[in-house]
Protein backbone atom coordinates (compact mmCIF):
# COMPACT_ATOMS: atom_id res chain seq x y z
CA UNK A 1 0.00 0.00 0.00
CA UNK A 2 1.33 3.39 -0.92
CA UNK A 3 1.64 5.52 2.18
CA UNK A 4 2.62 8.73 0.52
CA UNK A 5 2.71 9.81 -3.06
CA UNK A 6 3.81 12.95 -4.86
CA UNK A 7 2.76 13.55 -8.47
CA UNK A 8 4.73 16.05 -10.58
CA UNK A 9 5.27 18.52 -7.76
CA UNK A 10 6.43 22.04 -8.56
CA UNK A 11 7.28 24.83 -6.19
CA UNK A 12 8.40 28.28 -7.23
CA UNK A 13 9.47 30.96 -4.82
CA UNK A 14 9.56 34.68 -5.39
CA UNK A 15 6.78 34.84 -7.95
CA UNK A 16 5.06 37.89 -6.63
CA UNK A 17 6.58 41.10 -7.88
CA UNK A 18 5.77 43.84 -5.48
CA UNK A 19 6.56 47.51 -5.13
CA UNK A 20 9.89 47.00 -3.39
CA UNK A 21 10.96 43.84 -5.20
CA UNK A 22 10.42 44.49 -8.87
CA UNK A 23 13.57 42.74 -10.00
CA UNK A 24 13.13 39.51 -8.02
CA UNK A 25 13.57 36.42 -10.15
CA UNK A 26 11.72 33.28 -9.23
CA UNK A 27 13.51 30.21 -7.93
CA UNK A 28 12.31 26.79 -8.95
CA UNK A 29 12.90 24.95 -5.67
CA UNK A 30 11.12 21.74 -6.61
CA UNK A 31 10.89 20.86 -10.26
CA UNK A 32 8.38 18.32 -11.59
CA UNK A 33 9.11 15.74 -8.94
CA UNK A 34 7.23 12.48 -8.48
CA UNK A 35 7.82 9.65 -6.07
CA UNK A 36 6.00 7.28 -3.79
CA UNK A 37 6.71 5.76 -0.42
CA UNK A 38 5.51 2.33 0.65
CA UNK A 39 4.30 1.69 4.16
CA UNK A 40 7.21 0.64 6.38
CA UNK A 41 9.83 1.84 3.95
CA UNK A 42 12.78 4.07 4.77
CA UNK A 43 13.59 6.49 1.99
CA UNK A 44 16.81 8.52 1.98
CA UNK A 45 16.70 11.85 0.20
CA UNK A 46 20.22 12.92 -0.65
CA UNK A 47 21.50 16.07 -2.26
CA UNK A 48 23.75 19.04 -1.70
CA UNK A 49 22.48 22.13 0.07
CA UNK A 50 20.07 24.18 -2.01
CA UNK A 51 18.75 21.31 -4.13
CA UNK A 52 15.26 21.52 -2.65
CA UNK A 53 15.27 18.71 -0.08
CA UNK A 54 13.80 20.75 2.75
CA UNK A 55 11.24 22.41 0.48
CA UNK A 56 10.08 18.97 -0.55
CA UNK A 57 9.69 17.98 3.10
CA UNK A 58 7.57 21.07 3.76
CA UNK A 59 5.39 20.31 0.77
CA UNK A 60 4.87 16.72 1.86
CA UNK A 61 3.80 17.82 5.33
CA UNK A 62 1.41 20.38 3.93
CA UNK A 63 3.30 23.23 5.59
CA UNK A 64 3.45 24.84 2.19
CA UNK A 65 1.26 24.50 -0.85
CA UNK A 66 2.87 23.44 -4.13
CA UNK A 67 2.66 25.71 -7.18
CA UNK A 68 1.34 22.71 -9.11
CA UNK A 69 1.18 18.95 -8.65
CA UNK A 70 -0.52 16.76 -6.08
CA UNK A 71 0.39 15.11 -2.81
CA UNK A 72 -1.51 12.03 -1.68
CA UNK A 73 -1.65 10.26 1.66
CA UNK A 74 -3.01 6.71 1.41
CA UNK A 75 -4.46 7.61 -2.01
CA UNK A 76 -6.22 10.62 -0.53
CA UNK A 77 -5.39 13.94 -2.17
CA UNK A 78 -4.65 16.52 0.52
CA UNK A 79 -3.08 19.20 -1.66
CA UNK A 80 -5.89 21.72 -1.30
CA UNK A 81 -7.08 20.85 2.17
CA UNK A 82 -7.70 23.68 4.58
CA UNK A 83 -5.62 24.05 7.71
CA UNK A 84 -8.32 22.61 9.94
CA UNK A 85 -8.83 19.65 7.64
CA UNK A 86 -5.08 19.03 7.55
CA UNK A 87 -5.31 18.44 11.30
CA UNK A 88 -7.07 15.16 10.64
CA UNK A 89 -3.92 13.68 9.06
CA UNK A 90 -1.22 15.80 10.75
CA UNK A 91 -1.03 13.37 13.64
CA UNK A 92 -0.01 10.65 11.18
CA UNK A 93 2.95 12.60 9.82
CA UNK A 94 5.58 14.15 12.05
CA UNK A 95 8.92 15.81 11.58
CA UNK A 96 12.30 15.83 13.33
CA UNK A 97 14.26 19.00 12.72
CA UNK A 98 17.94 19.61 12.15
CA UNK A 99 18.33 21.98 15.04
CA UNK A 100 16.03 20.66 17.72
CA UNK A 101 16.81 23.39 20.22
CA UNK A 102 15.55 26.03 17.83
CA UNK A 103 12.34 24.09 17.27
CA UNK A 104 11.43 24.01 20.98
CA UNK A 105 9.72 26.73 22.92
CA UNK A 106 12.52 27.74 25.31
CA UNK A 107 10.03 28.39 28.12
CA UNK A 108 8.54 24.90 27.95
CA UNK A 109 9.80 22.02 30.04
CA UNK A 110 10.46 18.68 28.37
CA UNK A 111 7.08 17.50 29.66
CA UNK A 112 5.27 20.39 27.99
CA UNK A 113 7.22 19.97 24.74
CA UNK A 114 6.32 16.31 24.38
CA UNK A 115 2.83 16.81 25.80
CA UNK A 116 1.93 19.62 23.41
CA UNK A 117 1.01 17.46 20.40
CA UNK A 118 -0.94 15.14 22.72
CA UNK A 119 -2.89 18.08 24.14
CA UNK A 120 -3.52 19.39 20.64
CA UNK A 121 -5.09 16.10 19.77
CA UNK A 122 -7.53 16.03 22.64
CA UNK A 123 -5.73 14.49 25.63
CA UNK A 124 -6.72 16.74 28.54
CA UNK A 125 -6.22 14.74 31.71
CA UNK A 126 -2.98 15.67 33.43
CA UNK A 127 -2.36 12.22 34.81
CA UNK A 128 -2.77 10.36 31.54
CA UNK A 129 -0.63 13.00 29.84
CA UNK A 130 2.13 12.49 32.38
CA UNK A 131 2.04 8.73 31.90
CA UNK A 132 2.15 9.06 28.11
CA UNK A 133 5.03 11.52 28.23
CA UNK A 134 7.01 9.30 30.57
CA UNK A 135 6.39 6.31 28.35
CA UNK A 136 7.56 8.23 25.29
CA UNK A 137 10.66 9.48 27.08
CA UNK A 138 11.53 5.94 28.04
CA UNK A 139 11.27 4.85 24.43
CA UNK A 140 13.87 7.37 23.27
CA UNK A 141 16.25 6.46 26.07
CA UNK A 142 15.75 9.40 28.43
CA UNK A 143 14.99 9.08 32.12
CA UNK A 144 12.10 10.29 34.21
CA UNK A 145 14.26 12.94 35.86
CA UNK A 146 14.55 14.81 32.56
CA UNK A 147 10.85 15.60 32.54
CA UNK A 148 11.16 18.92 34.35
CA UNK A 149 14.23 20.17 32.52
CA UNK A 150 14.26 23.05 30.08
CA UNK A 151 15.68 22.44 26.60
CA UNK A 152 18.81 24.55 27.19
CA UNK A 153 19.73 22.36 30.15
CA UNK A 154 20.05 19.28 27.94
CA UNK A 155 23.05 18.18 25.89
CA UNK A 156 22.90 18.15 22.10
CA UNK A 157 22.18 14.43 21.97
CA UNK A 158 19.45 14.69 24.59
CA UNK A 159 17.84 17.59 22.73
CA UNK A 160 17.70 15.48 19.61
CA UNK A 161 16.15 12.66 21.60
CA UNK A 162 13.45 15.01 22.88
CA UNK A 163 12.86 16.09 19.27
CA UNK A 164 12.34 12.46 18.30
CA UNK A 165 10.15 11.89 21.36
CA UNK A 166 7.88 14.77 20.35
CA UNK A 167 7.61 13.30 16.86
CA UNK A 168 6.61 9.83 18.08
CA UNK A 169 4.31 11.03 20.88
CA UNK A 170 1.23 10.77 18.66
CA UNK A 171 2.30 7.37 17.28
CA UNK A 172 2.53 8.57 13.67
CA UNK A 173 3.04 6.37 10.63
CA UNK A 174 5.57 8.58 8.92
CA UNK A 175 8.42 10.66 10.30
CA UNK A 176 10.33 13.06 8.10
CA UNK A 177 13.84 13.64 9.48
CA UNK A 178 15.45 16.77 8.07
CA UNK A 179 19.20 16.31 8.54
CA UNK A 180 18.61 15.14 12.10
CA UNK A 181 22.22 14.36 12.99
CA UNK A 182 24.29 16.97 11.23
CA UNK A 183 24.85 18.83 14.49
CA UNK A 184 25.89 15.70 16.39
CA UNK A 185 29.28 14.04 16.59
CA UNK A 186 29.99 10.54 15.26
CA UNK A 187 29.44 8.57 18.44
CA UNK A 188 26.08 10.22 19.07
CA UNK A 189 25.15 9.81 15.42
CA UNK A 190 25.59 6.05 15.76
CA UNK A 191 23.41 5.96 18.88
CA UNK A 192 20.68 7.97 17.13
CA UNK A 193 20.71 5.69 14.09
CA UNK A 194 20.28 2.68 16.36
CA UNK A 195 17.47 4.45 18.19
CA UNK A 196 15.61 5.24 14.96
CA UNK A 197 15.98 1.64 13.78
CA UNK A 198 14.62 0.37 17.06
CA UNK A 199 11.64 2.74 16.98
CA UNK A 200 10.91 1.66 13.46
CA UNK A 201 10.72 -1.96 14.55
CA UNK A 202 8.63 -1.24 17.65
CA UNK A 203 6.17 1.26 16.21
CA UNK A 204 6.11 0.24 12.55
CA UNK A 205 7.24 3.62 11.30
CA UNK A 206 8.20 4.80 7.84
CA UNK A 207 10.94 7.36 7.48
CA UNK A 208 11.88 9.94 4.94
CA UNK A 209 15.43 10.69 5.81
CA UNK A 210 16.90 13.90 4.42
CA UNK A 211 20.68 14.20 4.43
CA UNK A 212 23.61 15.39 2.37
CA UNK A 213 25.92 12.61 3.47
CA UNK A 214 25.74 9.50 1.30
CA UNK A 215 27.80 7.48 3.76
CA UNK A 216 24.91 7.57 6.23
CA UNK A 217 22.15 6.32 3.98
CA UNK A 218 23.49 3.09 2.59
CA UNK A 219 23.20 1.27 5.90
CA UNK A 220 20.03 2.91 7.09
CA UNK A 221 17.73 3.31 4.11
CA UNK A 222 15.81 0.77 2.03
CA UNK A 223 16.02 3.04 -0.95
CA UNK A 224 17.86 6.23 -1.75
CA UNK A 225 16.70 9.06 -3.99
CA UNK A 226 19.31 11.52 -5.19
CA UNK A 227 18.07 15.06 -5.74
CA UNK A 228 19.62 17.62 -8.01
CA UNK A 229 18.22 21.06 -8.80
CA UNK A 230 14.75 20.30 -7.55
CA UNK A 231 14.26 16.91 -9.19
CA UNK A 232 15.05 13.29 -8.38
CA UNK A 233 17.77 12.14 -10.76
CA UNK A 234 18.26 8.64 -9.47
CA UNK A 235 16.55 6.18 -7.18
CA UNK A 236 18.15 2.95 -6.06
CA UNK A 237 18.23 0.55 -3.16
CA UNK A 238 20.46 1.38 -0.21
CA UNK A 239 23.23 -1.15 -0.78
CA UNK A 240 23.14 -0.71 -4.51
CA UNK A 241 23.87 2.97 -4.69
CA UNK A 242 27.42 2.81 -3.39
CA UNK A 243 28.50 0.45 -6.15
CA UNK A 244 26.28 1.24 -9.08
CA UNK A 245 25.69 4.97 -9.18
CA UNK A 246 24.50 5.85 -12.66
CA UNK A 247 23.96 9.57 -12.69
CA UNK A 248 27.12 11.73 -12.84
CA UNK A 249 25.78 13.88 -10.03
CA UNK A 250 25.48 10.85 -7.74
CA UNK A 251 29.05 9.90 -8.53
CA UNK A 252 30.16 13.41 -7.67
CA UNK A 253 28.38 13.18 -4.31
CA UNK A 254 29.97 9.80 -3.67
CA UNK A 255 33.45 11.04 -4.45
CA UNK A 256 32.98 13.87 -1.94
CA UNK A 257 32.46 11.44 0.92
CA UNK A 258 35.71 11.23 2.91
CA UNK A 259 37.63 7.99 2.50
CA UNK A 260 37.37 5.47 5.33
CA UNK A 261 41.04 4.58 5.33
CA UNK A 262 44.05 6.84 4.70
CA UNK A 263 45.52 4.30 2.28
CA UNK A 264 42.63 4.94 -0.08
CA UNK A 265 43.24 8.63 -0.61
CA UNK A 266 44.36 9.52 -4.07
CA UNK A 267 44.84 13.18 -4.81
CA UNK A 268 47.31 13.78 -2.00
CA UNK A 269 50.44 12.02 -3.08
CA UNK A 270 50.84 13.87 -6.34
CA UNK A 271 50.69 17.22 -4.60
CA UNK A 272 53.34 16.27 -2.09
CA UNK A 273 55.56 15.09 -4.92
CA UNK A 274 55.03 18.36 -6.70
CA UNK A 275 56.24 20.19 -3.63
CA UNK A 276 59.32 18.04 -3.17
CA UNK A 277 60.35 18.73 -6.73
Amino acid sequence: MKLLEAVSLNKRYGMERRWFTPGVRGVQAVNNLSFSLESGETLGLVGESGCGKSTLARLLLGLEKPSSGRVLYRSEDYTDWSFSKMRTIRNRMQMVFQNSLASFNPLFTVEQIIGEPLRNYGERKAQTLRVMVEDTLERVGLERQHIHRYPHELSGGQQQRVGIARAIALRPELIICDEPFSSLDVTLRKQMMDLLQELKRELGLSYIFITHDLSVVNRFCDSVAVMYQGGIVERQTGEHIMQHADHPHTRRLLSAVPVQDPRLRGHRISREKEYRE
Partner: protein
Amino acid sequence: MRTEPPLLKVSHLCTSFHTGSEQVRAVEDVSIEVNSRQIVALVGESGSGKSVTAMSILGLLDPPGTIDSGEIWLGGTNLRECTSRQLRKLRGTEMAVIFQDPMNALNPVLSIGRQIIETIILHRRVSRQEARVLAIQQMQQAGLANPEQLLGKYPFQISGGMCQRVMIAIALVSGAGLLIADEPTTALDVTIQAQILKELDRIRWANDVGILFITHDLGVVAELADYVYVMKSGRIVESGNVFDMFSSPVHPYTKYLMDCR
Protein backbone atom coordinates in the same frame (compact mmCIF):
# COMPACT_ATOMS: atom_id res chain seq x y z
CA MET B 1 63.73 18.16 7.44
CA ARG B 2 63.29 16.74 10.91
CA THR B 3 66.10 18.94 12.20
CA GLU B 4 64.06 22.15 12.27
CA PRO B 5 62.26 22.71 15.59
CA PRO B 6 58.53 22.04 15.68
CA LEU B 7 56.23 24.90 14.76
CA LEU B 8 54.07 24.35 17.79
CA LYS B 9 54.99 22.40 20.85
CA VAL B 10 52.55 21.97 23.69
CA SER B 11 53.76 20.02 26.66
CA HIS B 12 51.82 18.83 29.68
CA LEU B 13 49.09 21.40 29.30
CA CYS B 14 46.45 21.46 32.02
CA THR B 15 43.44 23.74 31.75
CA SER B 16 40.56 23.97 34.17
CA PHE B 17 37.42 25.96 34.76
CA HIS B 18 36.63 27.36 38.18
CA THR B 19 32.94 27.53 38.89
CA GLY B 20 32.04 28.67 42.37
CA SER B 21 33.48 26.09 44.72
CA GLU B 22 34.12 23.52 42.02
CA GLN B 23 37.05 23.13 39.68
CA VAL B 24 36.55 21.26 36.42
CA ARG B 25 39.59 19.92 34.63
CA ALA B 26 38.90 20.25 30.91
CA VAL B 27 42.38 19.46 29.63
CA GLU B 28 44.74 17.19 31.52
CA ASP B 29 48.38 16.68 30.65
CA VAL B 30 48.10 17.21 26.90
CA SER B 31 51.22 17.27 24.73
CA ILE B 32 51.03 18.06 21.03
CA GLU B 33 53.55 18.84 18.34
CA VAL B 34 52.85 20.39 14.96
CA ASN B 35 55.53 20.75 12.30
CA SER B 36 55.56 23.05 9.36
CA ARG B 37 53.58 21.72 6.36
CA GLN B 38 52.07 19.04 8.56
CA ILE B 39 48.39 18.47 9.22
CA VAL B 40 47.81 17.21 12.72
CA ALA B 41 44.34 16.07 13.68
CA LEU B 42 42.91 16.27 17.17
CA VAL B 43 39.97 13.86 17.33
CA GLY B 44 37.40 13.29 20.03
CA GLU B 45 33.70 13.43 20.79
CA SER B 46 32.06 16.66 21.90
CA GLY B 47 33.06 17.68 25.39
CA SER B 48 36.41 15.91 25.25
CA GLY B 49 38.38 19.15 25.51
CA LYS B 50 39.50 19.59 21.90
CA SER B 51 38.33 23.15 21.55
CA VAL B 52 39.55 24.14 25.02
CA THR B 53 43.00 22.90 24.02
CA ALA B 54 42.87 25.08 20.92
CA MET B 55 41.67 28.10 22.85
CA SER B 56 44.44 27.59 25.43
CA ILE B 57 47.01 27.64 22.65
CA LEU B 58 45.52 30.79 21.16
CA GLY B 59 45.21 32.49 24.53
CA LEU B 60 41.52 32.99 23.95
CA LEU B 61 40.22 31.20 27.04
CA ASP B 62 37.27 32.94 28.62
CA PRO B 63 37.64 34.09 32.26
CA PRO B 64 36.48 31.12 34.36
CA GLY B 65 39.00 29.01 32.45
CA THR B 66 42.67 29.18 33.35
CA ILE B 67 45.78 27.35 32.25
CA ASP B 68 47.14 25.67 35.37
CA SER B 69 50.42 24.30 34.14
CA GLY B 70 52.29 23.27 31.03
CA GLU B 71 54.23 25.00 28.32
CA ILE B 72 53.19 26.23 24.90
CA TRP B 73 55.98 27.05 22.47
CA LEU B 74 55.27 28.64 19.14
CA GLY B 75 58.56 28.46 17.28
CA GLY B 76 60.93 30.16 19.73
CA THR B 77 58.32 32.04 21.76
CA ASN B 78 56.87 30.81 24.99
CA LEU B 79 53.22 31.76 24.74
CA ARG B 80 52.62 31.24 28.45
CA GLU B 81 54.91 34.17 29.25
CA CYS B 82 53.41 36.53 26.71
CA THR B 83 51.22 39.42 27.77
CA SER B 84 47.77 39.60 26.25
CA ARG B 85 49.01 42.44 24.04
CA GLN B 86 51.85 40.33 22.65
CA LEU B 87 49.48 37.40 22.19
CA ARG B 88 47.12 39.58 20.23
CA LYS B 89 49.92 40.51 17.87
CA LEU B 90 51.01 36.88 17.50
CA ARG B 91 47.47 35.77 16.74
CA GLY B 92 47.54 37.71 13.54
CA THR B 93 51.09 37.26 12.38
CA GLU B 94 52.13 33.81 13.60
CA MET B 95 49.00 31.84 14.23
CA ALA B 96 45.49 32.06 12.90
CA VAL B 97 42.24 30.29 13.53
CA ILE B 98 39.17 29.33 11.55
CA PHE B 99 36.02 28.45 13.39
CA GLN B 100 33.27 25.92 13.10
CA ASP B 101 30.52 28.23 11.99
CA PRO B 102 31.79 30.65 9.36
CA MET B 103 28.49 32.48 9.14
CA ASN B 104 28.70 33.51 12.79
CA ALA B 105 32.43 34.16 12.86
CA LEU B 106 32.20 36.98 10.32
CA ASN B 107 30.76 40.34 11.27
CA PRO B 108 27.32 40.53 9.66
CA VAL B 109 27.20 44.33 9.36
CA LEU B 110 30.57 44.83 7.66
CA SER B 111 31.23 43.97 4.04
CA ILE B 112 33.62 41.13 3.35
CA GLY B 113 36.11 43.44 1.70
CA ARG B 114 36.15 45.70 4.72
CA GLN B 115 36.83 42.77 7.05
CA ILE B 116 39.74 41.45 5.02
CA ILE B 117 41.27 44.87 4.36
CA GLU B 118 40.98 45.76 8.03
CA THR B 119 42.94 42.66 8.97
CA ILE B 120 45.67 43.48 6.47
CA ILE B 121 46.01 47.07 7.68
CA LEU B 122 46.17 45.91 11.29
CA HIS B 123 49.14 43.66 10.61
CA ARG B 124 51.05 45.29 7.79
CA ARG B 125 52.20 48.80 6.99
CA VAL B 126 50.29 49.27 3.75
CA SER B 127 47.91 51.84 2.37
CA ARG B 128 44.26 51.08 1.83
CA GLN B 129 44.75 50.67 -1.92
CA GLU B 130 47.63 48.23 -1.48
CA ALA B 131 45.60 46.36 1.11
CA ARG B 132 42.77 46.05 -1.38
CA VAL B 133 45.07 44.54 -3.98
CA LEU B 134 46.47 42.14 -1.38
CA ALA B 135 42.97 41.19 -0.30
CA ILE B 136 41.98 40.35 -3.86
CA GLN B 137 45.13 38.26 -4.29
CA GLN B 138 44.49 36.41 -1.06
CA MET B 139 40.87 35.71 -1.96
CA GLN B 140 41.94 34.28 -5.29
CA GLN B 141 44.41 32.06 -3.46
CA ALA B 142 41.67 30.80 -1.18
CA GLY B 143 39.75 29.68 -4.26
CA LEU B 144 37.16 32.45 -4.49
CA ALA B 145 36.19 33.33 -8.01
CA ASN B 146 35.32 36.97 -8.75
CA PRO B 147 36.97 38.56 -5.71
CA GLU B 148 36.37 42.16 -6.84
CA GLN B 149 32.65 41.59 -6.80
CA LEU B 150 32.75 39.78 -3.48
CA LEU B 151 34.47 42.64 -1.69
CA GLY B 152 31.25 44.65 -1.53
CA LYS B 153 29.07 41.78 -0.37
CA TYR B 154 27.94 40.92 3.14
CA PRO B 155 28.34 37.53 4.82
CA PHE B 156 24.62 36.71 4.63
CA GLN B 157 24.64 37.18 0.87
CA ILE B 158 27.10 34.38 0.22
CA SER B 159 26.95 30.64 0.90
CA GLY B 160 28.46 28.83 3.87
CA GLY B 161 31.26 27.34 1.78
CA MET B 162 32.23 30.76 0.48
CA CYS B 163 32.12 32.20 4.00
CA GLN B 164 34.57 29.51 5.08
CA ARG B 165 36.88 30.43 2.20
CA VAL B 166 36.70 34.06 3.26
CA MET B 167 37.66 32.95 6.77
CA ILE B 168 40.63 31.04 5.35
CA ALA B 169 41.64 34.11 3.35
CA ILE B 170 41.49 36.31 6.47
CA ALA B 171 43.44 33.74 8.45
CA LEU B 172 46.23 33.52 5.90
CA VAL B 173 46.41 37.15 4.91
CA SER B 174 49.12 38.08 7.37
CA GLY B 175 51.25 35.05 6.58
CA ALA B 176 50.57 32.99 9.69
CA GLY B 177 52.65 29.82 9.95
CA LEU B 178 50.21 27.94 12.16
CA LEU B 179 46.57 27.53 11.32
CA ILE B 180 44.20 26.15 13.93
CA ALA B 181 41.05 24.83 12.31
CA ASP B 182 38.30 24.17 14.84
CA GLU B 183 35.85 21.80 13.09
CA PRO B 184 35.92 23.91 9.91
CA THR B 185 33.66 21.64 7.87
CA THR B 186 31.00 20.52 10.36
CA ALA B 187 28.48 23.12 9.21
CA LEU B 188 29.01 22.41 5.51
CA ASP B 189 27.63 19.70 3.28
CA VAL B 190 29.82 16.90 1.92
CA THR B 191 30.61 18.34 -1.50
CA ILE B 192 31.66 21.69 -0.03
CA GLN B 193 33.54 19.86 2.71
CA ALA B 194 35.57 18.00 0.10
CA GLN B 195 36.46 21.29 -1.60
CA ILE B 196 37.53 22.98 1.64
CA LEU B 197 39.65 19.97 2.64
CA LYS B 198 41.38 20.05 -0.72
CA GLU B 199 41.95 23.75 -0.27
CA LEU B 200 43.54 23.26 3.15
CA ASP B 201 45.77 20.56 1.74
CA ARG B 202 46.85 22.85 -1.07
CA ILE B 203 47.64 25.91 1.07
CA ARG B 204 49.84 24.01 3.45
CA TRP B 205 52.21 23.22 0.61
CA ALA B 206 51.78 26.58 -1.10
CA ASN B 207 52.12 28.76 2.02
CA ASP B 208 54.23 26.53 4.28
CA VAL B 209 51.53 26.31 6.90
CA GLY B 210 51.22 23.79 9.69
CA ILE B 211 47.61 22.95 10.50
CA LEU B 212 46.12 21.76 13.77
CA PHE B 213 42.84 20.25 12.64
CA ILE B 214 40.19 19.71 15.27
CA THR B 215 37.38 17.36 14.31
CA HIS B 216 35.15 14.57 15.48
CA ASP B 217 34.92 12.96 12.06
CA LEU B 218 37.41 10.17 11.47
CA GLY B 219 36.55 10.22 7.77
CA VAL B 220 38.01 13.71 7.48
CA VAL B 221 41.07 12.53 9.38
CA ALA B 222 41.57 9.62 7.01
CA GLU B 223 41.27 11.99 4.10
CA LEU B 224 43.65 14.69 5.22
CA ALA B 225 45.77 14.26 8.33
CA ASP B 226 49.39 13.14 8.71
CA TYR B 227 49.42 12.63 12.43
CA VAL B 228 46.53 11.98 14.82
CA TYR B 229 45.89 12.60 18.50
CA VAL B 230 42.79 10.97 19.96
CA MET B 231 41.34 12.78 22.92
CA LYS B 232 38.93 11.53 25.54
CA SER B 233 37.69 13.42 28.61
CA GLY B 234 40.58 15.85 28.56
CA ARG B 235 43.37 13.35 28.03
CA ILE B 236 45.16 12.14 24.95
CA VAL B 237 44.58 8.40 24.84
CA GLU B 238 46.38 7.56 21.64
CA SER B 239 48.59 9.26 19.10
CA GLY B 240 50.37 8.15 16.02
CA ASN B 241 50.86 8.27 12.30
CA VAL B 242 47.53 8.25 10.51
CA PHE B 243 48.34 5.10 8.50
CA ASP B 244 49.41 3.12 11.56
CA MET B 245 46.44 4.21 13.60
CA PHE B 246 43.86 3.26 11.01
CA SER B 247 45.44 -0.12 10.30
CA SER B 248 45.94 -1.05 13.94
CA PRO B 249 44.24 1.10 16.57
CA VAL B 250 45.45 0.23 20.04
CA HIS B 251 43.26 2.02 22.56
CA PRO B 252 39.70 0.65 22.95
CA TYR B 253 38.28 4.16 22.59
CA THR B 254 39.95 4.61 19.20
CA LYS B 255 38.49 1.29 18.11
CA TYR B 256 35.08 2.41 19.34
CA LEU B 257 35.34 5.64 17.33
CA MET B 258 36.25 3.67 14.22
CA ASP B 259 33.26 1.38 14.70
CA CYS B 260 30.96 4.38 14.85
CA ARG B 261 31.50 5.24 11.22
